[in-house]
């Protein structure tokens, strides 16, 4: 039996700077602080009724940010609904994320190579395979990466996507964020496999486990998977072990299925921001007061994004009709007239 060790970088501090420069590590850290600030703000806005149901990524910042830093802007990012952190690094402004949480379809921006966040579970994984194949066929130096959770590994499309990717040696990365929970159902109820990474074996593709709260290890793992893909060595399934600190979404009450004490280590020494902060302090690139400054900057930044989103003009009926097809068919023209006639 193959062993499935959990890859870490920050455990070996002497070697870590050789893998990820202090400068890059600091940038990753800043964006992790920004993502947490953003999530906390969004939770507040939801309580105030200013945004709708929101899925925070609290606790998963290392995987979200570390992974996206390993990508090129030419890569296709195929996200699930909790991946606004990765989308942000890839080029989508938080303003758009806020708009999305306000019930507006706006999770994309300009020419950022990303699909809209997939809401159904795992159905977006085959898209990453197709995008990866398309990049390869057109001779582009790009990969496609799909983000999904542990629950997604139970879906048929997980199987179909990894199987297709293996058969066609697609330059794809499957980033599974094993955060322990699919709403209330623990990962032990998703599979009898001791790990999720070992599922790669059945598809003849590479599989790895990484400490998903070690941002530098996640960065390094995705970087290696990307290099494998681009050198035609095929796709990689990454199981990133992390923990969802918050609710599934603002509509969820986690006290129904887990104990407050379960969270204690994850909020403490396992917290990805705490861990990277300790490391950067040891490296001498982060002072004790720097975090306060970063938080303040992040709050300002996030507040600006919220103001910009709230200043957007109200939605109009035509926006619901005009992007269903490239050209609005007569029945939609008529239905729009019906709606607008009814409004007046």
């Amino acid at each position, binding site marked *: 039996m193959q062993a499935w060790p959990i890859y870490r970088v920050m455990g070996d501090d002497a070697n870590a700077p050789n893998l990820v420069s202090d400068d890059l590590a600091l940038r990753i850290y800043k964006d992790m602080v920004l993502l947490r600030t953003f999530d906390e703000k969004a939770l507040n806005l939801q309580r105030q009724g200013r945004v709708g149901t929101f899925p925070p990524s609290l606790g998963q910042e290392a995987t979200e940010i570390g992974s996206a830093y390993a990508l090129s802007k030419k890569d296709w990012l195929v996200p699930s609904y909790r991946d606004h952190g990765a989308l942000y690094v890839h080029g989508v402004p938080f303003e758009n994320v806020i708009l999305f949480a306000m019930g507006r379809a706006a999770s994309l921006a300009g020419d950022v190579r990303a699909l809209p966040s997939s809401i159904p579970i795992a159905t977006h994984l*085959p*898209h990453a395979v197709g995008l990866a*194949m*398309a*990049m390869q066929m057109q001779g582009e130096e790009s990969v496609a990466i799909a983000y999904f959770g542990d629950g997604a590994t139970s879906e048929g499309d997980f199987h*179909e996507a990894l199987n*297709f990717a293996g058969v066609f040696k697609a330059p794809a990365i499957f980033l599974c964020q094993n955060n322990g929970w699919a709403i209330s159902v623990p990962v032990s109820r998703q599979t009898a496999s001791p790990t999720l990474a070992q599922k790669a074996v059945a598809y003849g593709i590479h599989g790895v486990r990484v400490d998903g709260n070690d941002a530098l290890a996640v960065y390094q793992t995705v970087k290696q998977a990307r290099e494998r893909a681009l050198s035609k060595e095929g796709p990689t399934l990454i199981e990133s072990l992390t923990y969802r600190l918050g609710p599934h979404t603002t509509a969820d009450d986690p006290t129904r299925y887990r104990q407050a004490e379960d969270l204690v280590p994850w909020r403490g020494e396992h917290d990805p921001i705490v861990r990277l902060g300790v490391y950067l302090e040891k490296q001498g690139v982060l002072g004790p007061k720097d975090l306060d400054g970063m938080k303040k900057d992040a709050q300002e930044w996030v507040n600006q994004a919220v103001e910009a989103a709230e200043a957007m003009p109200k939605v109009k009926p035509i926006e619901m009709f005009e*992007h269903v*097809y490239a050209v609005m068919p007569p029945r939609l023209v008529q239905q729009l007239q019906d709606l607008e006639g009814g409004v007046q």
Partner: protein
Amino acid sequence: MAEQNMVQALNTALHEMFEGDARILLMGEDVGKNGGVFRVSEGLFDKFGGQRVIDTPLAESGIIGTAIGLAVGGMRPIAEVQFMGFLYPGLDQLFSHAGRLRARSVGQVSVPLLVRMPYGGGIRAPEQHADSAEAYLTHTPGLKVVVPSTPYDAKGLLYSAIEDPDPVIFLEPIRMYRLGRMEVPEGRFTVPIGQARVAKTGSDLTLICWGAMTHLAMTVAEDFQKRGIEIEVLDLRTLAPLDRQAIASSVAKTGRCVILHEAPRTGGLAGEITALIMEVAFWYLKAPVARVTGFDVPYPAYAWEDFYMPNPERLSRVITETLKD
């Protein structure tokens, strides 16, 4: 100009398209070396190779889902589903993604995807090979659904479908694959999506149909003609978006309408077309709109197929009833 059956017309169209546009791919089960179970892709693999004529693993959601990614990524994939009865695992991809990505991305992502599949009954196929599931698709916003009934329309619609910026589902009536030949021009020509065809003009009654039912409609209409009754046969060719204008003007002219499909009756497209006629031509009607359809039973094993499928007797009876004053 060569006479071709529908399989030949589709095959020729595919060869021409592959020559003309290097982005075009065909992917599905047995489409490569085998040339497709109905031989629609005959010769493509030898000519264009396995990079463009792709035998995939046996998984409909994977085929359509991967094709969506290919389409977004700049290719022009044609996904083949071996039989419409096996489409259902792939419906999720059509419902949840193909039909929505343009809207969900506020127009930033388009999915120029063509999904082809044989559909319908009448050839004594094994169970679950004969479904007419078009209503699931026409009910889904963001998709276009076309159904040729002749070799000419098959080629012209295939060209329109591959050039369309939106996902198009291309239904190929199994019974018409090799039934009848006609002259089909060489090279590119298009039959516009969204335009019905008056297969036979008439002033006494409008008979609306598509796919293999057009063949039945023509047979019955010619029979009525011998008795001096002029039936107008309207072959819809596109089921989404419906050609409202063609339906309205034909029914306004004749004042009587029978709708014919082989899919089960309840929730079938005949109901939608009837409602459309109420909206656009009610005051012209001289008789209630009637429908002749399959029954609300699972498509039966073929020993019962002749009971299930609309036939000349059932159709003639309903037409006669609708012609009464």
